[in-house]
Structures are given as structure tokens and as C-alpha cells.
């Protein structure tokens, strides 16, 4: 029998701008999650996400080659090729789904992929504890 639950609260993990405009999220553990989740677990998730976003925006040789090739073709390659950034975003979506399945769903939580929120926040939905209603 599938359980369905009520949304008790939502926590928003905001962006961390100390390193500029690169996409990074704050690793500070929100107090609302204290009863549900391990601090290390949460920080591990956010840190991995931050690393993945840093990888997407990395100024490496691959992104330069991609950029130069695009410039030479008047940027028409963007119409047919998936950029490195998009590839990493797919990886991030998969990672979040994995985390939700393994760690967050068993604890009554749900992570929303930041791309759904314009890379502004990581939305953590806290579902009501069904056992409290017994």
C-alpha cells in the first residue's frame, strides 16, 4: 500500500556567494531538519552537489575547446550538441534522485533539484510524521 503524506514544512538552502557567482549552496545545517537527519549526511549531500556544480562551471581545457569551436562555427554547434554544463546537470539530477531514494525518502524528506527553482535554492520538503497522528 502506497503511503502519501502531508507537507509539514519546507526548508530552503540558499546560495553561497562568497566565491563569486559560481553556483554553490550553503552547507549550514538547518535547525528544522535536526530531528530528521544527520548533520554529516546533509553536509555530505550539499558538498557533493557543490562539487558537481563547480565541475559544470569549471574553466578547464574541455570548456575552452568547446567555446572556441563554438565561436568558430558562429555558435551553431549549440543547436545540435549538448554542452558540458548540461551533461553535468543530468548527473546532478540522477544524484539527487539517488539521494532521495536512499536517504531522504526513508526519513520523510524530499530534495528538489535546484534547476527546478532556477538554481536559487535547494528546497527540502518535510513531510508530516504519520506516526504522530495515531
Amino acid at each position, binding site marked *: *500500500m502506497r503511503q502519501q503524506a502531508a507537507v509539514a514544512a519546507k526548508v530552503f538552502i540558499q546560495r553561497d*556567494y562568497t566565491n*563569486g557567482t559560481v553556483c554553490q549552496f550553503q552547507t549550514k545545517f538547518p535547525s528544522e531538519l535536526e530531528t530528521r537527519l544527520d548533520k554529516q549526511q546533509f553536509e555530505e549531500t550539499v558538498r557533493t552537489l557543490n562539487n558537481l556544480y563547480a565541475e559544470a562551471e569549471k*574553466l578547464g581545457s574541455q570548456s575552452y575547446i568547446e567555446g572556441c569551436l*563554438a565561436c568558430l562555427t558562429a555558435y551553431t554547434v549549440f543547436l545540435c550538441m549538448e*554542452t558540458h554544463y548540461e551533461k553535468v546537470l543530468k548527473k546532478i539530477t540522477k544524484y539527487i534522485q539517488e539521494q532521495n531514494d536512499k536517504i531522504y525518502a526513508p526519513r520523510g524528506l524530499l530534495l528538489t533539484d535546484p534547476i*527546478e527553482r*532556477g538554481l*536559487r535554492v535547494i528546497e527540502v520538503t518535510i513531510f508530516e510524521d504519520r506516526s504522530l497522528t495515531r
Partner: protein
Amino acid sequence: MKKCEYQQIDPRALPTPTPPHHRGDDDGGGGGKSDELKRPRRKWEVFPGKNRFYCGGRIIVARQSGVLPLTLGLILVTSGLFFMFDCPFLVKHLTSCIPVVGGVLFVFVVITLLQTSFTDPGILPRATPDEAADIEKQIDNTGNASYRPPPRTKEVLINQQVVKLKYCFTCKMFRPPRTSHCSLCDNCVERFDHHCPWVGNCVGKRNYRFFYTFIVSLSFLTAFIFGCVTTHLALRAQGGKGLVFALQESPGSAVELVICFFSVWSILGLSGFHTYLVASNLTTNEDIKGSWSGKSGEDVTNPYSHKNIFINCCYVLCGPLPPSLIDRRGFLPADESAQTSGADIEVPTVATKSEINVVGGSSQLVNGTQEAPSPVPALPNSHHDSSSA
């Protein structure tokens, strides 16, 4: 002693927000009902900003196209006249490379112009109501909603530089650094440079490189055509025939000469200005406001610059291109009324309020629901219906 037990929630049972690359998955199940009434709508159809969409949301332009038709018209007319009047003569008397070079430049100019005009400049989707409420809570504003409270700012430290983030009342969020709200398009745009009427769109993070390539190739094209026309007329006027005779022979060249002469200076100037901006990783907006020039006597430096001209250029022009954040072609969840974009999670919130009322209101009702052996449907909406029945 009450034991806290967390029951396994099947994430797939919940109205999960559809990821951008898996469009339509949710609509298979929940959208079935509304499909019979109306087709599932895409997010661009309810986009709150002042933009227009074509080709099913693939092309995005500002509401006012500005003078884009004039820009395109001038380029096409001048290039057309060049290929018709000047090229035949110059190919005969000089070299056949001239139309080739001209052709390549022309193609570059038109493609980059269209890309600048039709690409999402880096629009930030507006905050969902939940996010906005969360921010309001943090600001702790006790004023009522009928007047605009004083501007809210937040200070952050970026590379040891204090940067003030302003709150956008339209988009209901604190703008990230370098983001500005364009009043013509009614959107917050990341790394906002300026709203260009010639191109009919904002120039921001995602289309700045197209814009830069456009103005640089346009300055090359204009200078090239100007040079070729001058050479053509000089060659024709040789032998004492005079300039007037040459102009009479090739009237198209006169038109080109006038257009190119008046535009080459401004376009070259603009290219030079933007080359300076690219090399110092600045935006037109920041340069005009003097954000990092230290006018007020403070020790301010641009915190976004990589302190190296070459790296700055590489970053701005060849750096990674982020995808569009507004997901124009994504589907709206079936049971959503007119929304701001990306507000998928709203549905359970609406149901939540009524759900909590039901649950909190009477424990007998809840017990009754709990004991019922019937399988509970996935959507909270339907659960509400069954519990209130």
C-alpha cells in the same frame, strides 16, 4: 511513550516536480483527466515576464522588438548591394577572395544577430510562493502589503569585497550578484549587461558572447564593405573619369558608402568598449554605475575579475554556457491554475492546508481514515476528497 516512526515514503507516489529532461512523465498519470478537457500547457504559455515566444517556446524575444527589423534590414540591404554592385567589378579587377570574405562575414553577422535576439539572456524564474514566504519570514517585515516597504538589501562578502544584494519586489527574491531587473522585459536577468533595442532583447549571461561576436563581426563587415566600395569607386574614377562618373555607373555603391560611413564609427567604438569590458570582466551596467571604480574613495576592486586579461576574455567568451533556467517547453502539471514558472510543488501545498485542517481538526476522522482498508490514492487532493466524504 510515543515512538517516532518514519514510514517509507515512495517518492514516485508523490507529485514530484518533473525534471527538465523528462517532460511529460507526470502528465501521463495525473494529466489524463485534463487532457480530455484541454491539452497540457507548456510553461512558456504562462510565463509572467513581458516576452513573446515563437515556435512553441523555442524562440524568445522581448515584447517590443525595438529596431531589430531596421538592424536586419540595414545589414541585408547593404550586403545585398555589395554583392550585386561591387563584387562583380572587384572580382574582375582584383581577386575573387573578396566575395568569399564578405560572404563569411555576412553569415557570421546574421547568425550571431539572430542568436542574440532569440536566445534567453539568462532570465531568472520568479520565486515560488513558498520561497517568497520563507524570505519574508527571515526579513521579519511587519508592514502591510498596500505600500512598498523601504528597499531591502543583504550584504555578502565576495572575494573580500562587500557586495549589496537587492530584493526584487517583482520576482520576490534577493537578486544574485550581477543580476538586474529589466523593466522593459519585466525579468531579472543574470549578469545583466544592457537592454539593446537594436537587437530587441536583453544582453545577459547567456547571450553576451553572441552579442560580442555580432558587434565585432559587424565592425569587420562594415569596415570591409567600406574599404571595398572605396576601392571600387577609386578604380572606376581612374583615368580622369571622376568620382561623379563612378557614382553614376554604380549607384548602389553610393548608398553603401553613406550607410557604412555613418555606422562604422559607432560600431567600432562599441566593439572597442565591449572589448574593454570583456578584458576586465565588467558589465555595461556596472561600468555605467561605477560599481567598481572606487569613485566614492573606497578601496573597491572588481571581485569577479580573474586579474588576468587573457583569462577574463576566455571566461567571458569561451567559458561554459549555462542552460536556460526558465524551461520554456516544460509542461505545467495538469491541476495547476495560472502560475509563475516552475511552481510544481505548489499542488501539495494547497492540499496540505486542507489536509492539515482535516487531520488536526478531529482525531476520530483520522482514525476512521486510518482503519479504512481501501488503498489510498497517490494525490493528496483525492485523499482530501475521500477523507471528507
